[in-house]
């Protein structure tokens, strides 16, 4: 993290609706995200919470039935000569984004490497494609750079591998290739959409360590979209917790994991057993994620919230400030609200986590 923080991405009051045959679906309801150079932001949430849609908007690859009702996505990038430029991606047309942003300045790593690679093209060609298209790199030079990249992402025998097709590689290898493709044009921002969900634990750990290493070496910013809090704990500097198209809690990694304030974050944290959980039952969030087709007044989380107050059904909670960096959208933080503590199981667990952190020599 640099002293003077350069802002890379600023998503402001983003609001997106999808037109479907069943009626409009209000998928994103006022999302704000800031990302600085060299930092990692994680967006956590269940399926359908809108985390992928937000990032697709930033890439300009929203589905055709989506309309952006309001908001702006300001992306700042550095030209080759060092000058900086800020653009609002939402005001640009698809063609411009394709030429100037996609793959060149913002690159994306998708969940399933088998579907994101072209099965009829050698992996060498796929890595070189972006460089040749965006920068008109001579073929020989692109080839050499592709070999370099393969070595960088930890693939042995890089020259030989260049001529392989995706099906000749294992799942973990394929995801490494996808990362190499994403890095080919030296992007300022890397978006990883569930990059390890389709992979085994052992390989997952390797891929995450790889992304982290590359980030440290190149100083790029990374956005992680995931539902796995273990992954978040490993990589993120800042965490945004999304629910039903809204960010319900945001803060630094320590604030979210050691001092969560929103009942939904409590639920998420306690639903995933850590290795020391010996409680007989897991604390669960009752019910299931809401159907955004039927918009309800008040807090969207209220029906599943065992700490819901009367006002939750009438009025949507604003973002309450906890610290300079920590915000949560729950009426529990209002000064008029009754004092509610996080569930005892979670409290004990956080104490354990702190204890363990102390043993590891990084006390809070």
């Amino acid at each position, binding site marked *: 993290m640099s002293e003077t923080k350069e802002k890379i991405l600023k998503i402001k009051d983003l609001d997106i609706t999808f037109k479907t045959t069943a009626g409009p679906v209000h998928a994103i309801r006022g999302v704000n995200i800031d990302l600085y150079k060299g930092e990692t932001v994680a967006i956590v949430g269940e399926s359908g919470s809108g985390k992928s849609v937000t990032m697709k908007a930033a890439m300009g690859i929203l589905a055709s039935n989506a309309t952006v009702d309001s908001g702006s996505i300001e992306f700042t990038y550095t030209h080759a000569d060092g000058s900086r430029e800020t653009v609002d991606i939402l005001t640009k047309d698809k063609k411009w984004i394709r030429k100037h942003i996609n793959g060149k300045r913002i690159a994306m790593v998708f969940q399933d490497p088998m579907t994101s690679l072209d099965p009829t093209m050698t992996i060498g060609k796929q890595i070189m494609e972006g460089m040749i298209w965006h920068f008109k790199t001579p073929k020989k030079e692109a080839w050499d750079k592709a070999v370099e990249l393969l070595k960088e992402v930890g693939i042995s025998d890089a020259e030989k591998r260049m001529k392989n097709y995706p099906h000749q590689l294992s799942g973990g290898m394929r995801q490494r290739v996808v990362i190499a493709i994403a890095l080919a044009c030296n992007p300022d921002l890397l978006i990883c959409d569930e990059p390890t969900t389709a992979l085994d634990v052992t390989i997952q750990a390797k891929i995450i360590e790889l992304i982290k290493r590359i980030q440290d070496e190149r100083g790029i910013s990374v956005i992680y979209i995931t539902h796995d*809090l*273990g992954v978040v704990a490993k990589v993120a500097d800042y965490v945004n917790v999304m629910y039903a198209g809204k960010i319900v809690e945001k803060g630094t990694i320590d604030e979210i994991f050691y001092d969560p304030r929103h009942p939904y974050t409590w639920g998420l944290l306690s639903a995933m057993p850590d290795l020391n959980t010996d409680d007989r039952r897991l604390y669960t969030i009752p019910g299931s994620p809401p159907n955004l087709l039927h918009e309800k007044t008040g807090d969207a989380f209220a029906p599943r919230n065992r700490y819901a107050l009367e006002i939750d059904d009438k009025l949507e909670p604003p973002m309450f400030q906890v610290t300079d960096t920590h915000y949560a959208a729950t009426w529990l933080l209002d000064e008029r609200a009754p004092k509610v503590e996080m569930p005892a199981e979670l409290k004990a667990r956080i104490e354990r986590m702190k204890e363990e952190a102390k043993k590891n020599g990084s006390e809070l």
Partner: protein
Amino acid sequence: MAVNYNAEPILTVKGLKQYFKVSSTFTVKAVDDVSFDIYPGETYGLVGESGSGKSTIGRSVIRLYDPTAGEIHFNGRDISGKLSKADNQALRTQMQMIFQDPMASLNPRKKVRDILGEGLDIHHLYKTKEERETIIKNILAKVGLAPEHAARYPHQFSGGQRQRVGIARALIMNPKLIIADECISALDVSIQAQVVNLMKDIQEETGLAYLFIAHDLSMVKYISDRIGVLHLGHLLETGTTDEIFANPVHPYTRSLLSAIPEPNPRVEKNRKSMTYDYATSGIDYNVGSYHSMGGQHQVFGTDEEIAKWTSEKF
């Protein structure tokens, strides 16, 4: 729930081999000489990476495959060879399976009532229509669904509810053993916990046993009494959950455990996972024997390997 390890095991698997002949020169040894027991009321977790043979074991045990070699005893019956009609009948009612993807494992053209009732119909487990309806209603209530859900189709449910239907379908036959093959992997985090709690409650109530197959180690640790670690079709290490997690011996187990991401940022940020590569490790899974580490804990390897691993600290 305390499991009585002196009781007769509900399932005994001895030297199970499951080979798939791909061509005349190439045979895949998906499961190679695996032995384990499951006791009544116990949850046995099978873990390993994809391709380690954990799902194949589940499918061989419930006889979706014909085992190449080995013995499987279930509830006092030998179910490894050709099944007699009575054996088949007993196996099909007393052992049930829950699959990974509830959308793919429930017939989209059948109502929940008929999905659940199918087993009852086949085995003639009711006398009147009303009795069938009562059984279905009771089972729905047990898995936390409402009676009116019986008239719905699978697509009208959310993912978590669908998996509850999958569990209800397994439970309706009053099984003694349920094979749960990655049954929570396709669910959202908050829903996973609900389903796991439900499975635990049902076990408490009915005393059935689970063979829990998963790759999410933190969930396996939470639900299982004992664990078996599989790699490339070989059972490398088995023991109670505490024994395995407190004192993993085999390098593969150690690498697996070191890879589990923990939701504790301060610890997680400084941790490096261990690498294990069978090809370069110098370990041969075909030589060696099981060595007891005390209690239920057993590790597979040669004498020298075991001595070396136990001297290294994890």
